[in-house]
């Protein structure tokens, strides 16, 4: 069962204009690789030069912050929802 990935409007341009896409993978790393295959450049927007989740991007698997549960190695259960959220907001 595919995983639903919800993205902020600020990443819409990286995935062809969508803010909700389906992807496959057992871990977040797999998931992002799958998205990157279909939308080249996606990983570079979300991951830094060392391949880690950018410091200003939060990724949630369900309600769990991936940064506290293994980062990119976080398991992604079938049918779950992943959210990619900017850690900061523009304007105050």
């Amino acid at each position, binding site marked *: 069962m595919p995983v639903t990935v919800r993205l*902020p409007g*600020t990443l819409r341009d990286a995935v062809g204009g969508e803010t909700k896409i389906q992807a496959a993978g057992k871990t977040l790393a797999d998931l992002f690789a799958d998205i990157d295959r279909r939308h080249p450049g996606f990983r570079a927007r979300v991951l830094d030069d060392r391949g880690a989740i950018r410091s*200003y991007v939060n990724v949630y698997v369900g309600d769990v912050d991936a940064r506290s549960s293994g980062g990119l190695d976080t398991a992604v259960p079938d049918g779950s929802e992943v959210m990619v*959220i*900017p*850690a900061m907001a523009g304007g*105050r």
Partner: protein
Amino acid sequence: MPLRRIGAGLRAELWAKLESFNPGGSVKDRAGLWMVLDAEQRVDLDGRILLDATSGNTGIALALAAAVRGHAVELCMPDKIAAERRRIAAAFGATVTVTDPLAGSDGAILRARELARDPKYVYLDQYANPANPLAHAETTGPELWEQTGGRISHFVAGVGTSGTVVGVSRALRPRGVRIVAVQPDDALHGIEGWKHMATAIRPVIWDETCADEHRTVRTEDAVAMAKRLAREEGIFSGPSGGGAVAAAVAVAREHAGLVVALLADGGERYLSTPLWE
């Protein structure tokens, strides 16, 4: 205050204006107070609730000003964004309505617009309120002039609502100061409070022509400079302060004079984020 180490070897002197010393801890105290006082003059606030969309610092400023002036405040703030600012605003008595974190500050704006249809609210709308830039035209600009003894040649600040840049421009451009407006280089960024104007809801008060130069800064460079400010100058700044100084260094490398960067808040507001790890 002068940045002697980070500014060493540049053509211009490099100074920082530290807005974390305002009572509510950020530059937004100025616009917050001005908007509350302006609302008192314009409308009957009896039994009504001041409303705005904010990712934090304006919310704190409004909550503080409203607490002192005796008004109720409701704030629309994106969920899962730095919890410190939500808690501080709540401590001053504000009611916080959380909005879709995926929609960011623009989502908070849209929610506030919906709520504002109810007449019990007085929507301050920091993105469109003329009292926002006016606060900077009447306070920040004149302070910059006085505190530098009239020597300031360039003013560098990030653009969020744009109130700071627009207001300071109004005060200091007629005195020959060049205004430099800075934005994040990408729509997905980590410079709290700044807007990537090309992809964001455009603030009504924003006027590109108020700036002589427009520059962009990468989040990584902003954070790296915030860390340098702490370790080399003893200034604990938020990421936007680092971004402003990073841009100001570039300006001071190219031009002679006295370049002042505005540091909007302090780093303690971001301790729950991974930026300092």
